[in-house]
């Protein structure tokens, strides 16, 4: 007997739903093993990591706050990935959005500008992210450069640009030489939803984006085009859809959403520009997009789960004395399992009789 993978006649819808759950289960099992190897009680550790945050109202709000940028970025990335366009640089587009949006807050600081500042910041953030995403898109379409490499490399450019700005021209003169800009004025701050909480209007924006993406992908010709170009490029050309133009469009949309997430993040939670404004949202969102099946509603659920790993990682660091980097390990393992389990959507395991012996070879 031998185990073989056999192609299914049609993709399994049940497996498409179950496979991320299997991946999560495998991640938890691997996590338990990892904790055991670190000399921590595995069950207790997993409880602190994945379940305790769910019982604490403050932690629940924090999960929503951390999920907000993940949802915004991952929805944009899912459009790219569906179209077979590999934007790996959402982190950079996020930072540029924070910079272009944050610029307005810095420029209007102390001028008594009105309530137009925040909406204008959001627009500028989205435009900045889109413009930054246009660079790898154009390189790919015009010169055939791999967008995987160019978009990723531009992340480091954005990080260094932010670093330069907050240490140089935009540094708060009254900031005791810390590398930050001045605190944003009230008109540049994202309103909170509940008094005294950190939950902010960005969460509502993220939900609106999910709703928009659901309709766009499910009901419109543009959504059909995105899926067709990714799944069957030759059929898409036969249908009259241009893969080059779509590369540009999906990069622009995902860059805009990442930029929007960036400016929302600084105006809502950080309130000024500084070198570290993201714990790697742009990269974690890649995992969110795949765990969420590149589906907007799925991304919402997946973003909450990945946000949980951020919160759980922090509490595990405090109570278990494990390094914070363990969060990244968990996220990496999760992506690994998600991609592996996806095989089950198109294939199934079958036990086959052993192959016949080869005759005639002497």
């Amino acid at each position, binding site marked *: 007997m031998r185990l073989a993978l056999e192609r299914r006649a*049609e993709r399994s819808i049940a497996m498409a739903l179950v496979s991320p759950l299997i991946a999560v289960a495998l991640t938890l099992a691997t996590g338990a093993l990892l904790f055991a190897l670190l000399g921590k009680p595995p069950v207790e550790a997993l409880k602190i990591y994945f379940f305790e945050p769910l019982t604490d109202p403050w932690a629940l709000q924090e999960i929503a706050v951390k999920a907000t940028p993940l949802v915004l970025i991952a929805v944009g990335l899912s459009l790219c990935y569906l179209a077979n366009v590999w934007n790996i640089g959402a982190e950079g587009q996020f930072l540029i959005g924070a910079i272009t949006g944050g610029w307005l807050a810095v420029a209007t600081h102390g001028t008594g500008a009105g309530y137009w500042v925040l909406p204008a910041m959001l627009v500028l953030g989205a435009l900045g992210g889109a413009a930054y995403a246009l660079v790898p898109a154009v390189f790919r379409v015009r010169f055939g450069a791999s967008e995987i490499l160019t978009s990723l490399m531009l992340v480091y450019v954005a990080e260094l640009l932010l670093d330069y700005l907050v240490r140089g021209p935009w540094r708060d003169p009254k900031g005791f030489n810390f590398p930050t800009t001045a605190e944003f004025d009230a008109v540049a701050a994202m309103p909170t939803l509940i008094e005294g909480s950190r939950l902010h209007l960005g969460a509502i924006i993220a939900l609106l984006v999910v709703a928009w993406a659901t309709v766009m992908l499910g009901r419109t010709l543009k959504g059909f085009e995105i899926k067709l170009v990714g799944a069957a490029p030759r059929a898409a050309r*036969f249908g009259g859809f241009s893969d080059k133009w779509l590369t540009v469009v999906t990069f622009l949309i995902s860059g805009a959403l990442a930029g929007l997430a960036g400016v929302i993040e600084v105006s809502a939670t950080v309130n000024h520009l500084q070198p570290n404004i993201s714990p790697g949202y742009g990269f974690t969102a890649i995992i969110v997009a795949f765990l969420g099946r590149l589906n907007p509603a799925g991304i919402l659920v997946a973003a909450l789960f990945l946000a949980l790993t951020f919160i759980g990682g922090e509490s595990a660091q405090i109570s278990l004395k494990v390094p914070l980097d363990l969060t990244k390990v968990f996220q990496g393992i999760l992506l690994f399992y998600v991609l592996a389990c996806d095989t089950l959507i198109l294939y199934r395991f079958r036990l086959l009789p052993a*192959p*016949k012996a*080869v*005759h005639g070879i002497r």
Partner: protein
Amino acid sequence: MADAALAIASAPDKPVQPDELPLLEAVGVTKLYGHFVANDSIDLEIWPAEVHALLGENGAGKSTLVKMIYGLLQRSAGEFRWQGEPIELPGPAAARAHGIGMVFQHFSLFEQLTVAENVALGLDNVPLAGLDERVAEVSRNYGLPLDPKREVWRLSVGERQRIEIVRCLLQDPKLLILDEPTSVLTPQEAEQLFRTLRVLRKEGRAILYISHKLEEVRALCDTATILRGGKVIATCDPRAETAQSLASMMVGGEVGAVRSDGQKKLGNPRLVVRNLNVTPDDPHGVKLDGITFELAAGEILGLAGVAGNGQDELFAALSGEVLADNADVIRIDNRDAGRMSITERRRLGAAFVPEERLGHATAPRFKLSDNVLITGHAASPMVRRGFINRAQARAFVDRITKAYDVRKAKRDPEAASLSGGNLQKFVVGREILREPRLLIVSQPTWGVDAGAAAAIRQAIIDLAARGAAVLVMSQDLDELYEIADRLVVICAGRLSAPRQTRRADRGEIGMLMAGVGMKGAGHAARA
């Protein structure tokens, strides 16, 4: 037997075979795909020191047969014998272990690696030490000049083919299979290849040579087996035949039933192509050279030709997947369309059915109701202001299903789950139900069972009778004789002058397909 004796006589230094057994023998080998018989009890003998040609049109079953010999496919019935003993070939490794090597039409090489590294990757259990020298030695001995240290991306197509041949020769094969080796070569490279093959024959190796180039087969091969419709039609000595007699065996000697209805009344020209030249990006592609023809309303024009002579390039240029250099070289309904996108051409009333059903005409993993959108989104109530009307799309699938009897497991399955014939009926029906004024269809009944093929041909005839202009590209000459009013032949990117089907002589068409008598044809086509 006689051929083998002849080969021995003409090559005295060849090692004498210990026994009088064929090297490889196929006895009643049959391959079924569902109900489709790709190979129908094939009998074949390949002798040592023989260059054996396998001739046939596309779809005749040549590839299926050699893939079984190389272990890539498993036969449904029959037996292979190797030096008289029955053998099983569960995979290419087993075939190689017996001494069977194969050079494919499309190479599998890593562009960034060197010649020697590519050779090493393709070998089973060959010591890597000294491989450079061995590659150099083999390439020198057999007249296959190659630098082992050169990266593949620097090499011409002919040099890349040499890597594949050297890779096979390092395994010391007794039987070497070559799948249309000269289709990608210049005449000079081909001549060099023939010299190598003659050396190999002298060493007592057998060569199974797949081709449709008849002159080449006559010059090189000792024996030819001709396949048609999955059956062996004849085994002969090609040197004793003419290109014409080989062509007629390939395409079928009998003259098809000529259509009895009288001269049709043709309308105005719907499609006018004047001096269309296209240079392909792909090195395997064919350059279109001065393609010129007219297609009138109500007419079916048949385009015959051996595969890979520019049909794909012509289809892409006519559909708009590849744009022409000038707008006026393609005119649809008196509008310059050469620079129009495929969507704009569809809005002019054109419809297209490509050869490849899965991946080109349809997205395999998309539902049929999505697949109708691929060609229907430009002008139909299925899409309004950018929004898709799913109910309309499903209703259109139902109409196609009803009109063309598409059999499927459920109302709206994925395209890939349909059988070839049913998917083809869906793809043709999807275009014809849109009532196009111009239909360009490639291989309309390729790999389709007889019943479905008849239904599709009838649908095409009916569409033309309603006033549409139809261009049918097909390698099935019987099909073209059955439905086309006029015939043109494409060979090496050039078009012959059109002929009335009723007066076109099959032998002559076969010769044109083989490239005999095509000179200057591109300019004569204006007749």
